[in-house]
């Protein structure tokens, strides 16, 4: 029988594992004010290198650890050198997007090499348990604790007694001053990324051994947990990250003890949101401090949007509207229907991330809210489908805005973390709220799209319906951007301090943008639900959020025509070139990275 002591030990062990990830994140944030979204991918690499070593090379434990640390550190160095160093002098959004892109590329590469199926990762340790009071402890627990404590000690000695360690601390305190004193900031970054990656890789391996299972979904979870621990402890605060990790481990462990395993992540993300709202500088920061990010500096790249003449837009809309009358295959129409649905999501995200500057990573949650609302209303209460979809949009607007509102007081990276966590919370609630959502079984038999009582069965009418809705939403958004609200959103994005000084309430305008954007996303989700006839908690996932973000960057932040062009390009081109599904996300990630590096303003320019 498990006792509270068992749960405490489990919490501390898991906390140790989180600490290895979080310390790396804290070091990186310290020297470069960057939250490395790719940290979980390095953890994933570590787990799979560990698997190769243990299962295929049959190396002894100590060699396995060294091998994992070395390969992970190399990956970290490559990320720093080729992913981030070229972006040192670019706008603040660039490195944020780059680490997101890198994480997707790395995850996909691992998935392509090893397949997404879970694998067992044996620990090579004897399977015995020692009695400690009322609980038990195994050799693997001791190993994890040992690795955690040893790493902390080595890191402490490095930071305290080596020249490079001093340089790291100096850079973390004041980057400019350190540079003026002759500190080679590039070397500091290298050191920090190398150390962070080695620790992250070892952590991944240990977790794999602890649960005797590894799979490619570990990456995002690890990033989230590491970030939660780091933010709880105070971004950039290394000891804080360790304490935050232990706290997170314990909260999760006790939560699981009280409510069951499926609630584990819910507790982690609720802790994150709570800390972000109540103490955005972390638990250990003094109450009143300078904000965690610099106040000045442009968030997005300055650019002039490409002016598309009105006749060209009208012609393009006309051509796409007439397309089903031409002898085109159903396959082409279906591909474009997907593009229009993605287009609605991209319209929503380009308003929030581009026009308002709040880079949301949880946008798929808005799709899910719209989809479930519309599906449940049409099934349970027999709403006509058209009305149900509109209700889905309204519910997304209302509920989505309410859920995201804790992030309104945050800036930059923190918005992305919070929205990512809120997206996960929505998907976990859908999974666990079985009485309403059917839990993991999902909802099937959703009635097909219909308009004024006529079912839209054939591809052409679905095509016209979704295209018309998207064009309508695009026109509305263009109108919004031309009003005083468009101007206000962009002012808040460019400088929220100056915007407030001129009477713009951040809560009010962020809420309005999310209400408008939430509606478009909810409508897209609603249409998708009736189109697929079956949805579950995984239908709308983080990959869609990232795809939408890539679309938005490709088209140009805030650019309405760009969002639609980007959707057609990212949905259409892989189809046109018959690229297999498993390579697509890899390609999206690479496209995102190339854009950030070479054309940050996107195809049509930022508005």
């Amino acid at each position, binding site marked *: 029988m498990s006792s509270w002591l068992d749960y405490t030990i489990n919490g501390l062990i898991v906390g140790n594992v989180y600490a290895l990830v979080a310390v790396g994140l804290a070091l990186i944030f310290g020297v470069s004010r960057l939250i490395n979204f790719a940290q979980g991918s390095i953890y994933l690499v570590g787990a799979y290198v560990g698997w190769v070593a243990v299962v295929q090379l049959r190396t002894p434990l100590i060699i396995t650890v060294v091998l994992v640390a070395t390969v992970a550190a190399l990956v970290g160095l490559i990320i720093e050198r080729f992913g981030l160093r070229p972006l040192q002098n670019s706008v603040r959004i660039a490195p944020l997007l780059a680490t997101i892109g890198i994480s997707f590329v790395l995850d996909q590469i691992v998935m392509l090499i090893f397949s997404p199926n879970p694998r067992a990762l044996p620990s090579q340790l004897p399977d015995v348990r020692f009695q400690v009071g009322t609980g038990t402890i195994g050799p693997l627990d001791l190993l994890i604790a040992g690795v955690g404590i040893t790493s902390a000690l080595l890191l402490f000695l490095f930071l305290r007694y080596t020249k490079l360690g001093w340089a790291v601390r100096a850079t973390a305190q004041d980057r400019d001053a350190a540079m003026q004193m002759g500190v080679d900031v590039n070397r500091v970054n290298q050191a920090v990324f190398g150390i962070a990656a080695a620790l992250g890789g070892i952590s991944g391996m240990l977790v794999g051994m602890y649960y005797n299972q590894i799979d490619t979904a570990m990456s995002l979870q690890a990033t989230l947990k590491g970030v939660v621990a780091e933010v709880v402890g105070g971004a950039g605060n290394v000891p804080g990250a360790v304490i935050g990790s232990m706290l997170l481990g314990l909260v999760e462990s006790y939560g699981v003890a009280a409510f069951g395993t499926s609630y584990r992540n819910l507790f982690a993300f609720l802790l994150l949101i709570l800390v972000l709202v109540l103490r955005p500088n972390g638990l250990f920061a003094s109450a009143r401090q300078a904000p965690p990010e610099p106040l000045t500096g442009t968030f997005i790249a300055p650019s002039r949007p490409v002016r598309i003449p009105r006749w060209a837009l009208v012609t393009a809309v006309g051509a796409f509207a007439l397309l089903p009358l031409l002898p085109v295959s159903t396959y082409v129409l279906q591909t474009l229907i997907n593009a229009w649905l993605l287009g609605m999501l991209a319209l929503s995200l380009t308003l929030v991330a581009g026009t308002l500057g709040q880079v949301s990573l949880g946008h798929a949650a808005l799709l899910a809210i719209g989809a479930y609302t519309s599906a449940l209303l049409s099934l349970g209460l027999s709403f006509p489908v058209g009305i149900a979809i509109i209700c889905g949009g309204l519910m997304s607007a209302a509920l989505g805005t309410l859920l995201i509102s804790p992030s309104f007081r945050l800036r930059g990276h923190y918005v992305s973390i919070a929205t990512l966590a809120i997206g996960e919370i929505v998907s976990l609630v859908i999974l666990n709220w079985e009485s309403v959502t059917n839990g993991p079984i999902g909802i099937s038999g959703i009635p097909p799209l219909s308009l004024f009582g006529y079912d839209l069965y054939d591809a052409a009418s679905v095509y016209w319906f979704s295209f018309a809705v998207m064009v309508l939403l695009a026109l509305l958004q263009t*109108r919004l951007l031309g009003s005083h609200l468009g101007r206000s959103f962009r002012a808040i994005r460019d400088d929220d301090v100056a915007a407030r000084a001129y*009477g*713009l309430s951040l809560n009010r305008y962020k809420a309005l943008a999310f209400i408008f954007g939430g509606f478009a996303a909810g409508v897209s989700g609603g249409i998708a639900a009736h189109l697929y006839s079956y949805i579950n908690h995984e239908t709308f996932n983080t990959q869609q959020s990232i795809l939408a973000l890539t679309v938005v960057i490709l088209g140009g932040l805030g650019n309405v025509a760009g969002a639609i062009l980007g959707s057609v390009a990212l949905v259409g081109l892989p189809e046109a070139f018959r690229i297999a599904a498993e390579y697509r996300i890899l390609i999206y990630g690479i496209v995102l990275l190339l854009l950030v590096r070479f054309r940050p303003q996107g195809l049509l320019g*930022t508005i």
Partner: protein
Amino acid sequence: MMTRTTTLLSLRGLTRRFGGLTAVDGIDLDLGQGELVGIIGPNGAGKTTLFNLVTGQDQPDAGEVRFDGQDITAFSPEKLAGHGIARTFQLGRVFGNLSVMDNVLIGAHARLSAVRPAIPVMGPLLELGLALLRPSSVKAEEEQLREEVRVILKRFGERLLPRLDQPAYSLSYANRRRVEIARALALKPRLLLLDEPTAGMNPTETAEMQALISELKDEGLTILLIEHKLDMVMRLSDRVMVMDEGKMIAEGPGEEVRNDPKVIEAYLGHGLSQGAGKAPEQVA
């Protein structure tokens, strides 16, 4: 000194500490309607922090700010904008990707009728509806504001008017500062706080700015001015307040303050050891 007019702004014991440092230390100040008070002092004396406390960007640890008789100490910046307090920023904070026109229009934001309904939930939704439907009253208001912006920009001669549609990031440094002041004027402020409006400007540009501020003063605007160019401060100010290490060390008419031994000591003591740029400059 005699009280000629009603007091518009009054500070009592205003204090702000950062850790062990007291950046603003018990400042008392009364600013009469239509008065221009210049604030001088070495760098790090706490002048900008004082501005932040008055305009709500920062909250004081102690003390009180009253504006037109009302206690506004804990007010948010957006609320203060609604009360007619406008400021410019020391480092120049324009909205880089917005055109000159849009930048200045943001200054008039608090005056928009669509923004005013203070009903929770319904107020913002009404604003969204008005923005999308744009009835003729909204259009007319927008047109009138655009005309007002042109009138404000005329004050700067040909500096900004030809660049109306250019994004602010493409402007010269001096022009960005002008956009900031234009934005502040679009608020129709009752109190204007200018934080080093001529920093980085050459003598011609400085003279232009001085003429503009003098014009605003003549029109009856109440102004608090932080400025390093001593000559300009002396010419424009009704009174000068000198800050050093968070405290007010002298206050009074320009000539009196200039010869105050405490002021000379503060400037020489800090100024000389830190470099010539921080000493009071005489502008030809």
